[in-house]
């Protein structure tokens, strides 16, 4: 800005007064400060976690069970629990989300009231606080569905009416559903009309066109949505708090009706319920590091796939 203004006659090009100029510089300064702060915050967080967690972080840490009242050992069951959680969650949420997205982009008429209602629900679902999902899971899946199942099939014996992997995964899938729906919708829309018309003009039905042309072209979009959902699901704790996560388990879960350990929940426990803070602090940082590496790398993969789709659709 300064350069184009004539030194001799500073107001030749613009009629800004000196006062306005000072104000302008002040606000530029504020925006620059904000940028620096954002970057600094990120690096401070990452820096502390890497620095504090590096000591404990090792192959042994990620491949062994916690020992000595969780003051020693690793986080293997929490990693495996998190893994099972996101797999079961994806099995439930990806088909459901994909089908919803197909309805919204392919079948719903432009001014359809049902589609508008679905879109509104998806948007609302996306902003519901995650603890609400946790409470919903407790009330609906465990107390209503689970207890109902037990009363109908087990003669009231407690089996499904308590927290487990299945209910936690289903609760988590509700939380991640909007992510999947939006990603898949975006991918479906990138399939050009010309290709759909070519298929229809050959006598393909609408469903044949979707199955043979639209869905194969959207695979990477569906994958992006899945990965984003998985990385979201891997990091959330609130939805599984009451629906399946366990404080400590000596064995790995064997069925969907077992409880499980989870990385995020493990961090929460380590920081609030520890018997010996001095000893557990490094474990807590290392667990955080594991979780961060997991979610960041999943997001990175999603970003790479997404940018490839964008390039292809151009």
């Amino acid at each position: 800005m300064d350069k184009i203004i004539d030194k001799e006659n500073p107001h030749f090009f613009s009629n800004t007064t000196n006062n306005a100029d000072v104000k302008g510089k002040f606000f530029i300064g504020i925006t620059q400060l904000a940028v620096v702060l954002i970057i600094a915050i990120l690096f401070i967080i990452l820096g502390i976690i890497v620095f504090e967690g590096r000591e404990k972080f090792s192959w042994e840490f990620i491949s062994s069970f916690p020992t000595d009242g969780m003051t020693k050992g690793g986080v293997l069951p929490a990693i495996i629990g998190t893994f099972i959680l996101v797999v079961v969650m994806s099995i439930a949420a990806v088909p459901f989300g994909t089908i919803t997205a197909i309805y919204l982009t392919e079948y719903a008429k432009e001014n359809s009231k049902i589609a508008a209602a679905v879109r509104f629900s998806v948007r609302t679902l996306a902003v519901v606080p995650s603890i609400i999902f946790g409470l919903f899971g407790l009330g609906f899946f465990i107390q209503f569905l689970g207890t109902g199942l037990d009363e109908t099939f087990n003669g009231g014996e407690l089996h499904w009416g308590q927290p487990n992997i299945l209910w936690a995964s289903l609760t988590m899938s509700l939380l991640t559903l909007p992510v999947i729906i939006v990603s898949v919708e975006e991918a479906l829309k990138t399939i050009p009309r010309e290709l759909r018309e070519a298929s229809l003009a050959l006598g393909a039905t609408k469903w044949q066109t979707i199955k043979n042309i639209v869905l194969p072209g959207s695979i990477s979009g569906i994958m992006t949505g899945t990965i984003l959902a998985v990385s979201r699901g891997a990091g959330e704790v609130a939805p599984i708090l009451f629906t399946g996560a366990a404080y400590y388990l000596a064995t790995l879960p064997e069925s969907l009706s077992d409880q499980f350990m989870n990385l995020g929940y493990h961090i929460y426990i380590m920081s609030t319920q520890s018997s010996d803070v001095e000893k557990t602090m490094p474990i807590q940082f290392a667990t955080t590091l594991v979780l961060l590496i997991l979610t960041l790398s999943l997001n990175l993969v999603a970003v790479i796939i997404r940018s490839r789709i964008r390039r292809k659709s151009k």
Partner: protein
Amino acid sequence: MKNTKIEVKDLSLYYGEKQALKNISLEIPRNKVTALIGPSGCGKSTFLRCINRMNDLIPSVKITGEMLVEGIDIYDKNVDVVNIRKKIGMVFQKSNPFPKSIYENVAYGPKINGINNKTELDEIVETSLRQAAIWDELKDRLDDSAMGLSGGQQQRLCIARTLAVSPDIILMDEPASALDPISTSKIEELVHELKEQYTIIIVTHNMQQAARTSDYTAFFYLGELIELGKTNTIFTKPEQKQTEDYITGRFG
């Protein structure tokens, strides 16, 4: 005309409130090439897309009148639009091969019709590519992606893909408008050969192309059919003043 393939009676088409086709009535002869000409926005492409009910895809479109193909009104409630499109193929303005192999592009139509026998499919693919005069160019690279072909090759592949479903009628919507002169002349030769077996309706902006390729020509203007006649007659002594003005380049 005794050899009428398509008979259109009083066909009108509306986009919402706007009328795009006004009371079109005409007859299209069997195994001939009929060219639809007229300035941009005259309704010739819209009319073409009525013949295989492609306009069904646009929600606000309303169509009245009759479109009789072999005496059957294709807009009748009992007629299945999927069967119509199998019998009435379409080649689009912009070549639109599927992002699949050359083989898979041609085999797509037969496959969705339930043909899964490999020998049978191989045969259809070869016949169709031969008919589209592109077999010799492509026979050694059938498994390559169709996206790697040149524009002209892609368009002939799209024609082969249409032929593979064995239609009666082929609709062509400015099939050569995006191609270079050599590719264009190949497409025109192809049209000439294909009319032995098929009834062809071709929309074109290019007057010379209409004159070269077609037996009959229909001139559309502002959503109305002004004149339909033998191409020779239309281009030498048209009955309507508007047709003459357009053909001699006084407007449009």
